[in-house]
């Protein structure tokens, strides 16, 4: 594989392959920024990959009181799934178990555009056991559900977009684990400045990139041995002798343009950090271009 070198960092001549997804967004508010974030973190726990979690979800950004419908501190959460039905199920379960239960929380639609609606308060209102109250203000409808610390206010519906993309990625390779982590962290930090994207893995980073299939029956994915540094001498490795650690960033976006922008920002951060403090090489994961409709060529994203 040919590679370009920018600021001492080798960029593989390859591309990230990503897939069409269904996605939605919600805004969670609370009496304090801490509790808004707490509700979001709880709701997006165990939401790293659609392979086993049902959805991919993450905290997109923190909102100031001026940006939220009720004037309290808030956060915006994005959620991605492979089907509308699964997205609805995950949204309902996660808001019901993690946001409704969080002290002082309220929940609103976080996306105004979109092809379809998903039930938000319209599904959770039944917790009110008949004491729930609907309040329509202009075009928006809210549910007020009595709970033990007051009322849980939840907008009736949010929107669904079918233009979302899941699986944009960067594979960051370095001479040591600390340097690789430093480069990857810098990339994630830069990507978090981009709107409408999340990096769903822990802290935005995955260390266990996977390949399709397994030698074991029943496992749809298994470790990406070509990128495991401890197997360099044992398998048909994608790694050179200088690489000792590999990390991956997976990016989901409400639109393809957002994924492009995030990958561009991440790549720029890695290149800027340089090879001495960060990564030696950056690649991307794909399936030969046959599975996903969206291809992001690294050479088109260079700073």
């Amino acid at each position, binding site marked *: 594989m040919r590679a370009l070198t920018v600021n001492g960092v080798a960029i593989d001549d390859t591309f990230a392959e990503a897939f069409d997804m269904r996605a939605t967004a919600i805004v969670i508010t609370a009496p304090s920024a801490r509790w808004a974030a707490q509700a979001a973190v709880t709701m997006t726990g165990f939401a790293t990959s659609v392979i086993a979690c049902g959805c991919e979800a993450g905290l997109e950004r923190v909102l100031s009181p001026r940006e939220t419908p*009720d004037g309290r501190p808030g956060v915006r959460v994005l959620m991605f799934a492979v089907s509308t039905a699964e997205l609805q199920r995950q949204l309902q379960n996660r808001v019901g178990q993690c946001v409704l239960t969080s002290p002082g929380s309220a929940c609103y639609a976080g996306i105004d555009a979109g092809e379809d609606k998903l039930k938000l308060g319209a599904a959770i209102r039944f917790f009110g056991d008949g004491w729930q109250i609907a*309040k329509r203000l202009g075009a928006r409808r809210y549910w007020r559900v009595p709970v033990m610390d*007051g009322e849980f206010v939840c907008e009736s519906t949010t929107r669904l977009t079918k233009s979302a993309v899941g699986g944009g990625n960067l594979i960051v390779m370095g001479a040591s684990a600390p340097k690789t982590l430093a480069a990857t962290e810098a990339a994630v930090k830069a990507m978090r400045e981009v709107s409408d994207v999340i990096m769903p893995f822990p802290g935005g980073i995955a260390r266990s990139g996977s390949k399709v299939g397994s030698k074991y029956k029943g496992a749809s994915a298994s470790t990406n041995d070509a990128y495991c540094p401890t197997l360099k001498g044992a398998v048909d490795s994608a790694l050179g002798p200088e690489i000792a650690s590999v990390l991956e960033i997976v990016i989901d976006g409400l639109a393809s343009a957002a994924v492009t922008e995030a990958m561009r920002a991440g790549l720029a951060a890695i290149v800027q950090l340089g090879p001495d403090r960060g990564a030696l090489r950056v690649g991307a994961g794909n399936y030969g271009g046959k599975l996903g409709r969206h291809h992001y060529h690294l050479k088109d994203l260079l700073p």
Partner: protein
Amino acid sequence: MRPLTFASRGAPTQRLDLSPLTPQNLVGKTVAEIAKVELGTTRVRVTVGDAFRIREGDPATILIEGGSARFDRVGMGMTAGAIHVEGEVGVEAGRGMSGGELTIRGAAGPFAASGMKGGTLEIEGEAGERLGGPLSGETAGMSGGLVLVRGDAGPRAGDRLRRGLILIEGRAGAYAGSRMIAGTLAIGGEAGDLPGYLMGRGTILLGRGATLLSPTFGDCGEHDLVAARLLADFVAQASTKLARLFRRPLRRLAGDLAALGKGEILLPRP
């Protein structure tokens, strides 16, 4: 563009039905055609030309110069556009309107906003009885839109209100929000006896309480309601005075427990 203007020729000799004078009815009509439209309500024929001097303009905005308590059904059935009345109007102003903006720079008679489904009605003066209420035989009153009364409102404001927002900056008469089905009624001044009488659902905010509160409302204590913040922001578009009341700590009275009992009266902390 200039509004299509109807300048009153003086006090009408009979009650006039101004419901034909809506933007959707007048679009495409010439001044001569408009002048022939009949407004009379008795056997004596009265046309637009008899009652008003017409100045040509864009019928999307209608201006009525000079008001009268005999100008009935102004803006009735209006779907879009704007009607401004420089004076008072009679009964059923804005009745059944589903869109647009009706502004009355004076008082309005009984049944203003009756059966209203959408749009905005602003009354700068006082509103008569049964603001937004149903006529005899109708099961629901106003079902959408926003009504703002800068002055006082008569008895039974918001009677059988089903949806939408009624904002009264002044006082309200007896039985405000009686038999409310849902929706929101906010009263800045003092309300008369028994607000929320037999209401099933909905919200009534009483800025200065009422002369007599029904014992069939249960005191749920004082709260800082998130929903009130949403209401405050929404109400602020029309009335900053009433929006401020929603931002105070609110005592919640649940009722009317003599009926369904899922409504509420909110009393802002003085």
